[in-house]
């Protein structure tokens, strides 16, 4: 086993493979920076070139791209308050307020460093646990998946600071919006107003850009300043960010463990991990100012989302079950290279599995170095006058929203949701719970339907369900305690 491990390390260190890895990292960085584009676009871009390529080079190219998308998507999340992808949603909560305080470089550096550590920890954990993960993943059924999505949904309560009632209501609005389109597990289309566009529901990209980008950009234009406001110059440094991540190593480990744990479960995306990591960090850290620009609010979700994207490769490799859209296309890439993912990946093809994991480790290091080197110049965006920057961003965001399904309906949905979010923001409604409700609704409904159909009410007594239920209740109690304690 150690011999195979070292052979795989030697393989990835070949100059041609390193070059391909670097190319993949470059593509992934560009894709991640552009809001609205994710790993699927990146995979679709490189897939035509994979055919006929040497498998080791092909794997390096694909893994390089996949590994850094969630590192680079921190740029728009921190600098513009727009999540570059689903995995960067929670980063916005504290990343953007930090940018507004003139600490964009520090936030970015902390995020990239945590991301790198998360990715490496996840890869190393899989190295050692690969033989145990198989039975564990197979033991997880729909009831446990349902409870994990409920754990994500429970974060609505924790994250609705200031006005829990409006937070819950916004969460319900998100759940309602996600009910539009085809019902999971039933041949019924709901709330479509007889329009073809709504048959597939509201696209996540249109919703994310609508509720975050449009109100924020309009607010910026109105304020006639820069993103960093009166703070002007970005006085923060990369070193301060790296030091902050280093100081909060427990949080990085916690996020990485959560990301790796949830990542190996197929069917749960980065959104769940992101919010769970953020929520747990909120209740487990003392004297925090989460939501108002706390560096720990960036470190926790960033270490988790990268660990998640690495761990999500495991069900893809071991069971040929793609955990998300990106890994689905990646699966196609492996097949094009002549590799058939399945249980043989821990027997006859163990060398390939180790090679993939090494590629993941090196891609994370390279991605972090690339992103760190660009974080200073890109942070200068926060110092450009909004009246000059925002029109350009609006054009880019319209293009990004159109990519959801290449229909004018995407742009209409983006604008309509943006105007609603703008009104909600004007009336002091929290918008984050809306997004959480939206992203987790479909999984909740689907897993609830499957659990009820297969197990009846017996699923409520499953050990895994009870453990996660205890976790949810524990989170609520810790959250309530941490907010009620007031100095006397």
């Amino acid at each position, binding site marked *: 086993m150690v011999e195979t491990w070292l052979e795989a390390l030697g393989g990835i260190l070949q100059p041609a493979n390193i070059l391909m890895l670097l190319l993949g990292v470059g593509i992934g960085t560009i894709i991640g920076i552009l809001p609205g584009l994710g790993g699927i676009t990146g995979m679709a871009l490189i897939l035509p070139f994979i055919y006929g390529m040497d498998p080791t080079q092909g794997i390096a190219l694909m893994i390089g791209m996949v590994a850094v998308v969630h590192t680079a998507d921190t740029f728009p999340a921190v600098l513009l308050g727009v999540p570059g992808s689903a995995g960067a949603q929670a980063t916005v909560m504290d990343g953007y307020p930090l940018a507004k305080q003139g600490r964009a470089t520090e936030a970015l550096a902390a995020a990239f460093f945590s991301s790198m550590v998360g990715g490496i920890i996840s890869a190393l954990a899989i190295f050692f646990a690969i033989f145990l993960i198989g039975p564990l993943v197979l033991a997880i059924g729909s009831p446990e998946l349902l409870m994990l999505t409920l754990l994500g949904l429970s974060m609505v309560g924790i994250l609705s600071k200031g006005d829990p009632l409006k937070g819950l*209501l916004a969460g319900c609005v998100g759940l309602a919006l996600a009910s539009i389109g085809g019902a999971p597990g*039933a041949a019924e289309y*709901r709330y479509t107003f007889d329009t073809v566009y709504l048959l597939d529901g509201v696209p996540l990209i249109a919703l994310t850009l609508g509720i975050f980008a449009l109100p924020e950009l*309009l607010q910026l234009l*109105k304020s006639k300043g820069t993103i960093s406001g009166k703070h002007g110059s970005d006085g923060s440094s990369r070193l301060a960010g790296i030091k902050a991540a280093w100081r909060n190593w427990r949080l990085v480990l916690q996020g990485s463990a959560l990301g790796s744990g949830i990542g190996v479960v197929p069917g749960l995306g980065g959104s769940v991990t992101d919010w769970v990591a953020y929520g747990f960090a909120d209740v487990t850290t003392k004297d925090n100012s989460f939501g108002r620009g706390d560096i720990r609010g960036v470190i926790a979700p960033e270490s988790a989302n990268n660990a998640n994207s690495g761990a999500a490769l495991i069900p893809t490799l071991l069971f040929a079950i793609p955990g998300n859209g990106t890994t689905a296309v990646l699966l196609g890439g492996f097949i094009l290279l002549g590799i058939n993912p399945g249980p043989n990946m821990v027997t006859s093809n163990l060398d390939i599995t180790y090679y993939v994991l090494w590629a993941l480790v090196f891609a994370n290091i390279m991605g972090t170095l690339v992103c760190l080197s660009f974080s200073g110049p890109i942070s200068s965006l926060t110092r450009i006058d909004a009246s000059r920057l925002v029109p350009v961003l609006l*054009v880019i965001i319209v293009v990004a929203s159109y*990519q959801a399904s290449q229909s004018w309906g995407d742009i209409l949905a983006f604008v309509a949701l943006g105007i609603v979010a703008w009104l909600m923001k004007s009336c*002091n409604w929290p918008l984050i719970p809306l997004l959480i409700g939206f992203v987790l609704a479909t999984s909740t409904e689907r897993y609830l339907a499957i659990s009820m159909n297969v197990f009846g009410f017996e699923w409520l007594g499953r050990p895994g369900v009870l453990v996660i239920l205890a976790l949810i209740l524990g989170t609520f109690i810790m959250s309530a305690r941490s907010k009620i*304690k007031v100095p006397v």
Partner: protein
Amino acid sequence: MTEKFSLRQSVKRFVPKREEKKPVTRMGIALDVTVLLGFLWFTWEALGFVPTARHFPLFVGIAGASIASATTLLDVLRFRRQPRRSLHEESGGLIGSGKHLIWFGCFLLAAFLFSLIPAAVAYLILYLRLSSHMRWWGIALVVGVVLAVLIAARFILGLDFPPGLFFTIF
């Protein structure tokens, strides 16, 4: 020293404290009522779906309508208690953003009629000159960079742009 956790205090979290909250506006109440009506309609519609597709929206609808009722009631009570402000004072922020929203609306209309690239060029030139009062060389630079990025996105990343009703470039 800290106070001990109790159920009563947990419930207190949901009761708004006047000093922590921003003032309630008429638009805020109108939004509450709209959301409440929306959830009532949402619940009513859910009753017409087949049972397997009904449970989830029904639950969400009832929960949403209940919370929206409570929110509306609390906001109305708070509105009655707080000092009155004129409609102009309340809507100051919206009017400020409205002008920029109209600019953006014009850009989208132009994109719908003449496709994205010509609309983006016209929007950037007009906005940056008339609203941002930018110099011509600066405008040329910004438009050039945006065009280069869009063309690269079209031909390298293979992205599609919204077509125009009358003609489409790229």
